[in-house]
């Protein structure tokens, strides 16, 4: 593949048409059986329906999309941009047989425009500073981080935010925290962990069991749950110390499933598939969020003289997970500048070199597992207290896969990338739940697109933890 050079290379119109035509032909042969025919059920009888307009539109989209992408690749931007706008406009205005096709057409047009726009943007960046997009991003990062934190702090009080938005924000933040926790293991220490959900589960169950059996409050259970999960991290760590890469992934996958199966079958302790319900809710320094608090106690709204609103607890939970997530982030950024964090990164790069430098690989790996697991445990106990009900169903392999996807798609080791990926993978699908059955399809397509477009993740840039030549504050 050639990139857009300084002078646009000559490219024959014939070649463009041939490549676009070929792509269209391949997709046509796939689309005829997949989209073209459909078995419809009408009054108990089955008919074979044909959907030729859909096939035609899809093939046309693929033909033009391919053509525009070739043009963008060769540095011709005007035609793809206008073409993209036209496609989006046609999708918007023209009578198109199905809503789904309309959405596809509009987004295809917009993607082409965005792709061309991105090329223009990076070229300008390069021309202006002599460097690429990464450098501009690096400079803007501290401001971006500060702006994001401020935005997160005021979010519950913004005019457009409501119960649904805050709920989604809590969900996204939970995954951001899990992503940041797993990032320690996968992004920093380079240990591919496919069973991270096990620690999430250990944290959730520790909290739920301690709270129900011993009546401990949330604030006592939270550190205990983290400790238990960290302990499990070490237990998992020992047998896998010698493993790397694929082998490690398989063993951790097995461990994740083991924890879930134990939770499912140890009925006397965990109530098995029924799960644990009535997990106690967190209190605000002893003030509970109840309309009618038990005799002799005051509840949150009474203490502050507010009208009772069920939103109070949601907002409190939102801030709770925000603080937990920020603590994870803060810890990660700090540990990166300490010997342990640097040893993790060195271990990711080359274990043999690490040994030759006197770094103890066993302790280094175990500490990464334990600390990553601990944050997973914190997130788990938050999950338990938010839901009030937990069962093994919440801790399937899919969860591990999603958390790992967030880390990988965000860019290994990148904190900002995790936020972006969590919003893209969790927030947006949750927000547009109306698309229902297409949700997982879009989820998968998004992953494929991100990986083919930016194979090292959305924001894969890494800042050194220490600089020789300038005293500029470091951030990640």
């Amino acid at each position: 593949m050639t990139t857009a050079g300084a002078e646009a290379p000559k490219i024959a119109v014939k070649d463009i048409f041939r490549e676009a035509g070929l792509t269209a032909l391949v997709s046509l042969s796939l689309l005829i059986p997949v989209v073209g025919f459909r078995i419809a059920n009408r009054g108990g009888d089955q008919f074979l329906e044909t959907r030729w307009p859909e096939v035609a539109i899809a093939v046309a989209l693929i033909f033009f999309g391919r053509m525009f992408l070739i043009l963008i690749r060769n540095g011709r931007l005007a035609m793809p941009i206008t073409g993209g706008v036209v496609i989006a406009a046609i999708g918007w205005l023209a009578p198109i047989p199905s809503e789904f096709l309309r959405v596809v057409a509009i987004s295809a047009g917009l993607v082409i425009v965005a792709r061309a726009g991105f090329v223009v943007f990076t070229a300008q960046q390069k021309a202006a500073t002599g460097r690429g997009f990464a450098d501009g991003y690096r400079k803007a990062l501290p401001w971006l981080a500060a702006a994001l934190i401020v935005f997160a702090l005021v979010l519950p009080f913004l005019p457009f935010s409501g119960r649904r938005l805050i709920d989604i924000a809590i969900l996204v933040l939970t995954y951001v925290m899990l992503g940041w926790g797993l990032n320690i293991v996968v992004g920093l220490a380079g240990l591919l962990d496919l069973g991270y959900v096990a620690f999430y589960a250990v944290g959730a169950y520790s909290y739920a069991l301690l709270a129900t059996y011993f009546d401990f409050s949330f604030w006592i259970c939270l550190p205990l749950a983290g400790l238990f999960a960290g302990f499990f991290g070490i237990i998992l760590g020992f047998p896998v110390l010698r493993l790397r890469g694929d082998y490690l992934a398989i063993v951790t996958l097995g461990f994740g499933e083991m924890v879930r199966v134990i939770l499912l079958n140890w009925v006397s302790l965990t109530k098995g598939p029924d799960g644990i319900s009535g997990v106690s809710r967190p209190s605000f320094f002893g003030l509970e969020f109840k309309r009618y608090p038990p005799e002799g106690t005051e509840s949150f709204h009474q203490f502050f003289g507010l009208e009772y609103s069920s939103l109070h607890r949601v907002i409190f939970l939102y801030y709770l997970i925000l603080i937990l997530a920020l603590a994870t982030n803060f810890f990660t950024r700090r540990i990166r500048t300490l010997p342990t964090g640097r040893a993790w990164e060195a271990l990711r790069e080359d274990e043999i070199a690490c040994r030759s430098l006197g770094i103890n690989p066993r302790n280094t790996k175990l500490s990464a597992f334990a600390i990553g697991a601990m944050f997973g445990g914190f997130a788990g106990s938050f999950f338990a207290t938010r839901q009030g009900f937990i069962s093994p169903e919440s801790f399937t392999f899919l969860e591990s896969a999603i958390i790992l996807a967030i880390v990988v798609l965000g860019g290994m080791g990148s904190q900002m990338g995790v936020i972006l990926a969590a919003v893209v993978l969790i927030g947006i699908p949750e927000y547009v739940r109306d698309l229902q059955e297409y949700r997982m399809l879009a989820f998968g397509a998004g992953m494929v697109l991100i990986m083919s477009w930016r194979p090292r993740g959305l924001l894969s840039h890494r800042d050194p933890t220490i600089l020789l030549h300038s005293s500029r504050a470091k951030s990640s």
Partner: protein
Amino acid sequence: MTRDQPLLTVKHLTMRFGGLVAIDDLSFTAQTGEITAIIGPNGAGKTTVFNCLTGFYKPTVGRLTMMRDGTPWLLEQLEDYRISREAGVARTFQNIRIFPQMSVLENLIVAQHVSLMKASGNSVLALFGIGGYRKAERKAVDLARYWLDRVDLTDRADEDAGSLSYGAQRRLEIARAMCTRPSLLCLDEPAAGLNPRESGDLNELLRFVRDEHKIGLLLIEHDMGVVMEISDHIVVLDYGRKIADGLPDQVKNDPAVIRAYLGEDDLAEIGGGN
């Protein structure tokens, strides 16, 4: 340290992989303030000797004694990561093993992991800002800067190590090994792939390390120019056995060495030509 107690004493080192004898009853010594070269044809077992010394292999038979500050360390009994830590043996690798995605400076800071770990209370105290970690880190940067100046990489300290040229990566690897403050530095083919100018600079660097830092150097090298120029002492291996041991001039004229490098028949040919 006297001549009676060499820095490194290798006695009866034997390494078998199944039926294959990679090293057969090898004994030699290396002294502080000397460059000892191990040479030999391909497959003679040179890198295996290194791997035994640095703990990556456990020798089948043999005793490897390293003297550090008057204390003997038996290398064959130490775990690999403790060999650098306790016995002060640092090494470089035949195929370079730097940390490519970390900056040049970070590579050198990681090399000082052991002392920084101590200063930071195993990172735990430093996490809460307790203790003298910042000071220790500044000292570590000073040591790193010293070696960066020596290997001429100061200007590139903040770049990714992976973006350096091949020759620069070799120099970085040596600087990184020196940042562990070793007593013995083992270099596995440091001149491989270097151009003549870089190779000359390397000789300078190795002499500097020997003379200024008073440590022992152990060198595997194919480039005879480098070996003859800088070695104080040469050990020649062939099929895992030592066939010569002595000063460069002695070794150069040793018939057994010439035979090993040129082969019996070729030697006969040369002899016939005379």
